[in-house]
């Protein structure tokens, strides 16, 4: 019986095999190599990691990244919460349209979005032109190719990722609780503060973790909207590898990045369910 049982299970294990082999050979192996290089080049040892404590430029990149990611996460959570709150309380038919407003930006190419922001924010861009034409300003504002531009673009990218986990958690809140509170005469803000907000807290934390770890390794938006002046970790790694051919340093930072992300996820693993985030699309 158990031999037959095993024979049956073997078939199912075989189904897993192609993905497992592909993943091991073409995903895990290259990444493991990154980790290995950080300890072996240019010379074996922890020399590259020493730079974390001695090199000012390495520290500056890390601090810039953490600052931008923290601001981005806070703003994306705030905007995402407002939107998710509205969607959660909307009627069934209105909800569809609101969700579309979240899903469409989510799936539109990050390049297209960065390009749109450049069109709007650059020196002769639409925003500056409109403000000058109406006489509100006389000199164009520096809206892009700095930290401000990066944050505008990154928050724009991250809001949908904040909304999805928030919405998943808000939709589990029993509307009868809110109706009961209202029936007992609680003002709207009290209902929000004493019932809705505490119950949506797990979603808020999950959204925060998700947005933060996605922001940490962001490449394209900071590269285009930062204009090479404000460097974040991902762009800095690219620069080390492609332009400066400093593999040891680049892979060291890549390793730090992966460890930081996996550690954050491990700490909050109970609260963040990626499947729920991406499965709740419609």
């Amino acid at each position, binding site marked *: 019986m158990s031999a037959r049982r095993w024979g049956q299970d073997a078939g*199912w294990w075989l189904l*897993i095999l*192609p*993905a*497992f082999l*592909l*993943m091991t050979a*073409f*995903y895990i192996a*290259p*990444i493991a*190599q*990154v980790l290995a290089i950080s300890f072996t080049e240019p010379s074996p040892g922890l020399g590259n990691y020493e730079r974390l404590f001695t090199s000012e430029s390495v520290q500056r990149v890390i601090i810039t990244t953490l600052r931008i990611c923290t601001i981005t996460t806070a703003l994306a959570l705030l*905007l*995402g919460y407002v939107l998710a*709150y*509205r969607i959660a*309380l909307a009627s069934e038919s209105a909800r569809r349209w*609101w969700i579309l407003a*979240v*899903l*469409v930006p989510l*799936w*539109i*190419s*990050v*390049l*297209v979005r*960065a*390009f*749109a*922001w*450049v*069109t709007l924010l*650059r020196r*002769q861009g*639409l925003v500056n032109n409109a403000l000058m034409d109406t006489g509100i300003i006389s000199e164009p504002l520096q809206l892009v190719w700095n930290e401000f531009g990066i944050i505008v673009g990154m928050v*724009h990218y991250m809001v*949908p990722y904040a909304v999805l986990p928030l919405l998943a958690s808000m939709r589990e809140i029993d*509307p009868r609780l809110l109706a*009961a*509170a*209202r*029936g007992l005469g609680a003002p*709207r803000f009290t209902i929000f503060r004493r019932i809705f907000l505490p119950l949506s807290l797990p979603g808020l934390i999950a959204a925060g973790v998700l947005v933060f770890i996605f922001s940490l*390794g*962001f*490449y394209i938006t900071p590269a285009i909207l930062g204009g090479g002046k404000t460097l974040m970790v*991902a762009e800095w790694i*690219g620069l080390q*590898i492609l332009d400066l051919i400093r593999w040891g340093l680049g892979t060291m930072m*890549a390793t730090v*990045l992966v460890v930081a*992300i*996996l550690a954050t*996820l491990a700490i909050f693993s109970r609260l963040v369910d*990626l*499947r729920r985030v991406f*499965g709740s699309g*419609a």
Partner: protein
Amino acid sequence: MDHAHRPGRWTIAAAWMVAIYLVLPISIVIPVSLTDQRFLSLPQEALSLRHYATVLGSEAWLGSIWQSFLIAVAATVIAVVAGTLCAIGCWRLSRRSTDLVRAMMLLPIIIPSIVYAVGLYRYFAKLDLLDRFLGVAIAHGVTGIPYVVITVSTALAAFDPRLEQAARGMGASLSQTLRWVILPRIAPGILSGAIFAFIHSWDELVIVLFIASRDVFTLPRRIWDGINENLDPAMAAVAVLLVVFTLALLLLDLALRRRRDA
């Protein structure tokens, strides 16, 4: 008496502002693409389609679009076959070790693509896969697996496992069970995963920046060069074409989900 909790006026206004912040900047590329000027601007005197003509008449742009399309198709096939089978196996076995396998399949979403791209740059050099169609297709296929695993797992969660047991009990082989019982029931989930895997490859830039240079020059790569070199309205035309294409795929997915839920 209706005691339903509704958002206040200010909350609704704020939610509208956020929605506008999300959608408006993207839609701005539409008027810009129709400008009659030679630089990035709103149309001044008339609407013009000349920037679309520039793009659609350019062999370089068309070549990149075609190449991106072929790579995305190949990558989608890899991701869908591997991802679907893996999700089914994990679902049926459903134990601690398969939970680990499923977590491993999600890694490409969690680990930043810059890390993968750097590693792949070295790794593919040894295998002679740099700047090759096959190399990019494999890289995009592998990183597309998580989307398929997620959508198929979601579809399987709604599938009654007793159906599978009944089929096996009546003597159906594993491949017959797969083909006649499981796959037809989860087809919408697979298609959803295929759409996401396709969009993933179609839009992917970071990996391509590292492992391709001349022979493989995908659409995102050409847009990237365009943004960094010359910001001309042809870029806006390309952006609009991309937005329309993505929207069509997204609406297709929504229609599929609605049919599945109905």
